[in-house]
């Protein structure tokens, strides 16, 4: 997994690349939480554009970050999930909690 984190004013943009399974879940959780706790962040955007695989360990990190940012009164967005990743997100019901967008522009423009 490769990870790119970028803060744009009060939005944290996280671009993940590779496979989201238990091997990377812990690292991903830590990297995001470190920023959520120290910086003034009210929007969390996770870009899954380059994610080729996700299982319940990967979903767990997403849901966990959703709970965290919600407790801080922030909002979370998912961006760019491929059809196969989207299928798993829908299956888990995550899409009922977190809005999904096709690309980063779609969020910035709202």
């Amino acid at each position, binding site marked *: 997994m490769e990870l790119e984190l970028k803060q744009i004013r009060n939005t944290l943009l996280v671009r993940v690349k590779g496979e989201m399974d238990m*091997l990377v879940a812990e690292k991903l959780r830590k990297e995001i939480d470190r920023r959520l706790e120290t910086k003034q962040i009210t929007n969390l955007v996770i870009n899954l554009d380059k994610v080729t695989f996700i299982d319940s360990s990967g979903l767990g990190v997403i849901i*966990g970050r959703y709970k965290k940012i919600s407790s801080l009164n922030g909002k979370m967005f998912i961006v760019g999930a491929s059809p196969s990743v989207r299928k798993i997100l829908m299956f888990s019901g995550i899409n009922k909690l977190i809005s999904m967008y096709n690309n980063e522009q779609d969020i910035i423009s709202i």
Partner: protein
Amino acid sequence: MKNYVRFEFPSVPENVSFARSCVGAFAAQLDCTLEEIEEIKLVVSEAVSNSIIHGYKNQPHGKVLVMATILDDRIMEIMIEDNGIGIADIKQAMEPSFSSDPSRMGLGFTFMKSFMDELEVVSQPGEGTNIKLKRCFLVKDKEALA
């Protein structure tokens, strides 16, 4: 065609990706779609992760055994086995959203049930866990698909 592969490896997180790739590569011998292979990889990922996380409590010295069998061109059986702590209440463990670990989602068995045609769990506390999964693939009309 009747074929099988049986493999074992230690309970380290790196091997989850390895295990699902291998079973995926093996499943490619069947007449199945890329989407079906993705589903096979997902359930293997869930079962192997469970052995490592729950069965061996994230300790690296356990052994995980995976066996994939092609029964004919349409049926694949997958067995995942560990010698970990086992499951006391299998019925409860298989309930959607149940997890013994508050940080997890309890979705593993739900994925296995949903994406496979059969799921059988044999487990004894202290003896380990054996998961049998079975999936039948539709005969594809290659002409029609082309």
